């Protein structure tokens, strides 16, 4: 593989990985603090992307759209937490899976009723729509580099938030012993709503970012949701650090696999068949990685409560 292509693919892998991290960090935070498995996280991502595309389309300003998208996802997240999810904290995972599966159906149909079934398109602001030269001669879009930058900023911001702030201290305390935190006078119900809204805002942010490189439509959330689950399961559910490592692993393995497996099969098969079989196996690759990791380490790479 030529160097330029390799660099481009590694950057694509980083971009996918960091997007997944923004998505997965919210998911793993909610699981770590509240013990809630939230399938509707992908719907919040979809809402973020849809609202961003709608507002950016009608005002012509991407930044206004971005703020609206994040705000809409956070507000919706807080509302859902207050109305439905807080009744599920004490329940088993089965009830949580079912209730949040129901929320997916509600949000998807609701979004289809409001925004229609046709995909929306989201254009990048002028400043980010160019491309820059890579060593080796290829060019790489600035928009994707911006997504990588945002992912890194979110990762640093979250680690500071968790490790150094009062809110982060409460989140960590809530993870390890919620009764004790409540007994010490922390309003645990409000803390949960804040954590959930934070996770929802991150999902909305991920949606707004990805909306600039793919079409925005109902049903875009679920494929990403499944990948985000793969990420947090690999990393160890509840661990932000695990989510970061898992996300980069999944992003790179998936991207590199998609480009190199068809080539690899091309050595022994005719090109058309090699492309189909290779890309099919590439889609399976991250699940194979996940199964292999869980077979050896059943609680992920960085078990949160170990």
């Amino acid at each position, binding site marked *: 593989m030529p160097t330029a292509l390799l660099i481009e693919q590694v950057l694509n892998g980083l971009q996918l990985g960091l997007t997944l991290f923004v998505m997965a960090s919210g998911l793993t935070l909610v699981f770590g603090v509240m013990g809630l498995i939230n399938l509707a996280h992908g719907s919040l991502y979809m809402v973020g992307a849809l609202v961003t595309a709608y507002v950016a389309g009608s005002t012509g300003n991407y930044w206004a759209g971005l703020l609206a998208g994040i705000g809409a996802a956070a507000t919706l997240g807080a509302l859902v937490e207050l109305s439905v999810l807080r009744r599920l904290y004490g329940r088993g995972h089965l009830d949580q899976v079912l*209730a949040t599966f129901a929320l997916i*159906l509600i949000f998807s*149909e609701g979004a289809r009723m409001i925004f229609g079934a046709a995909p929306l398109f989201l254009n990048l602001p002028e400043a980010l729509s160019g491309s820059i030269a890579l060593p080796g001669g290829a060019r790489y879009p600035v928009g994707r580099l911006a997504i990588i930058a945002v992912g890194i900023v979110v990762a640093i911001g979250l680690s500071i938030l968790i490790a150094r702030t009062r809110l982060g201290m409460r989140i960590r305390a809530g993870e390890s012993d919620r009764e004790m935190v409540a007994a010490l006078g922390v309003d645990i119900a409000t803390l949960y709503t804040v954590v959930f809204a934070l996770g929802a805002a991150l999902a909305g942010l991920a949606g707004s970012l990805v909306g600039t490189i793919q079409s925005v439509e109902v049903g875009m959330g679920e494929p990403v949701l*499944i990948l985000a689950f793969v990420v947090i399961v690999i990393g160890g*559910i509840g661990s932000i650090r695990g989510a970061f490592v898992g996300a980069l692993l999944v992003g790179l393995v998936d991207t590199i696999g998609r480009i190199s497996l068809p080539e690899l099969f091309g050595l022994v098969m005719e090109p058309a068949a090699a492309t189909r079989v290779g890309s099919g*196996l590439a889609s*399976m690759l991250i699940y194979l990685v996940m199964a292999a990791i869980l077979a050896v380490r059943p609680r992920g790479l960085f078990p949160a409560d170990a």
Partner: protein
Amino acid sequence: MRETVVGLAALAALLLAALAAAGAGEVYYINLASKVAIIAMAGVGLNLALGFGGMVSFGHAAFFGLGGYAAGVAAFHAFDGTLFLGLLPGTDAMPIIWLAAVLVAVLFALPIGAISLRTSGVYFIMITLAFAQMIYFFAISWPSYGGEDGLPIYIRNSFPGLDAGDALTFFGLAFAALLASLALTDRLTRSRFGAALSMAHLNEVRLATSGVEPFPIRLTAFVISAAITAWAGALFADLYGFVGPSMLSWQRSGELIVIVILGGVGRPLGPVLGAALFVLLETFLGGLTQHWQLVLGLILLGVVLFARGGLMGLLGGKMAHD
């Protein structure tokens, strides 16, 4: 006791509905009854793992779809006169296809279960989902059996001595298969194995202390559960004359969980009620509004929040040991 009465009444109602539809010559409604029977059977399979064994599998669509592909691939080779993997001839005889579906499911469920059961809780949910996604993407990328487009079954497979192409006869086969799977799970759950299985769910340490290793018990239940669901999948493919990756999708796994929970988790006859309700909602709400999934979502949410025993809990009362 009341639960059994409600469940048997639901089975009788399904049989009567199919007979009434046949009397009125409404093939569409006979097929709808067959669909209820088949989906219920898939639910019976999942209920064994999920309800009795406490193993929340989010990947049972894999077994449903594998069963479907067993039927599709067997029919494809029978039609074509070619050999499967260059070894096995195709067939259009349902009993052999069913056996193949069960064998394929066992072959897949053994390693999947053995790896997945090392984990528990959310990890188990997610790793079963991951295995199902692997098989889903494999089916999409395997071009010889239709890949993304799926595989049509041009002529419904046959059952010796019967005309399976007739809608009511096919319903009879599906209904008999449903009864057989119900009888099998009933035998299992009442046996020593069933007691060990529910103990593995309720208190694993206690089971181990009394000298029974939980892992083989769970794995056996998982494999049987997969086999029943695969049998249902083979029937499903024959009902619609088509098998495709959608049978393997994660939404299908979610629907199977929904059916089990709508009916009532761990209630032997619950999946029959759950499947009937699900298919009725899908058909009649779907006819009223294209946004029927919104209503389905609201109903599900209501069931989870306010009716924890599912439909069987509402109609049949609390579980015996509650």
